[in-house]
């Protein structure tokens, strides 16, 4: 089956193949894969793909769900216009 165009991270257009390469390259966490491939670094901040990446890590026998870490969330957790931040009340 042709898996080449199976996108995992839609925002950054990262494919399953790229995620699997990152794992073969020694990345064992969602954060590690994110830094290596940019999966989860786009506008939605990994809201859909992080769970898929966890599933791939599990399928590959790299990590159990039980000792899976979620990526560190940072403010703002959703996209915010710069205008909204600069107009912040005292």
């Amino acid at each position, binding site marked *: *089956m*042709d*898996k080449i*165009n*199976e*996108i*995992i991270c*839609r925002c950054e257009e990262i494919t*399953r193949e790229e995620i699997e390469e990152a794992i073969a390259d020694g990345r064992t966490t969602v954060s590690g894969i994110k830094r290596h491939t940019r999966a989860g670094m786009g506008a939605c901040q990994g*809201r*859909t793909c992080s*769970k*898929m990446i*966890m599933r791939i890590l599990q399928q590959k026998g790299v990590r159990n*769900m*039980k*000792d*899976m870490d*979620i990526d*560190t*969330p*940072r*403010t*703002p*957790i*959703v996209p*915010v*216009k710069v*205008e*909204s*931040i600069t*107009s*912040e*009340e*005292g």
Partner: protein
Amino acid sequence: MRKAEILIIGAGPAGLGAAIEAAKLGAKVVLLDENEKAGGQLFKQIHKFFGSKQHYAGVRGFQIGEDLLKEASDLGVEVLLDARAVGMMDDGTVAVLHKEELIQIAAKKIVLATGARENAISFPGWTLPGVMTAGAAQTFSNVHGTLVGKNILMVGTGNVGLIVSYQLMQAGANVKGLVEVIPRVSGYGVHAGKIKRAGVPIWTSHTVIEARGKDRVEEAVIAQVDEKFQPIAGTERVIKVDTILLAVGLTPKVELAKMAGCALTVEPTLGGHLPYHNDEMRSTNANIYVCGDIAGVEEANTALDEGRLAGLSAARELGYGDDSVEEKKMELNAGLCALRMGTFGEKRLECKERIMKEWSW
């Protein structure tokens, strides 16, 4: 900087339950919701709930939502809509994007009732227009009166997959069938029965392996899976559909909890990562309570009662109410136990007991 005694993030059944109980005891409550209307998923629930009368058996979800909203507003709960919590600051204040303006809210106690998000699964073609989550299709049909497609394949037979399939059939869509990766239907028999009686096939031990189409979904390829859930070659079957809906579970929205330092655990039965909490819904951060789907994906009635518990506990901590609150909390915990019965509930109860046993701060 705005101030609140109790800030509740998320106005679905859990957040509304928390707001109502805390306000009843006299606490000053601010309730946020990112949507234009409060009520969370209740406003999409056009089916009748079942269970006991205490848990709104026989009442449709959106009617429960209307009742709770009215009760909260009668009690003087301040509701901020189009208000999305975007971060937790180190000093405990919450950054909120309210109608495009960033505001800060400082609260003595915070109740996180942020809910859950829908999972997706990937397969070649899943990014084509026409593939979406079941909940999105339900929002389109039940809130906006729009059918997302004519010929539909549903992926997943949990209650979301079953209920949304039936509602789309009622709305005039042709549901071509449902696939379920495990060997049996995973939702309630009462919902599956309605679909089966209408003659719609449910293919168990099957999954979708590809979506095909030029500019949008034109057909879905499904296949039988082996005991390791891998597609079996030669069992592929092509189904002409314009829409593939994914009803493959939910994940608690824990970003704010993690940012506030709440310790997380993992319970796949309850949706994955979620904050530890005790039987009064307190997280490992003394000022933060969690309730509803963020504390483990369950149902609207459990969310409502967990919310009530969180609201009572937070208000009591601030000195509101008297000893009778403890009695009320015991009743609610007993009610939650009763809701977690049967084949489906027992597994959730087991997880909840483990989470509470491991909780400490």
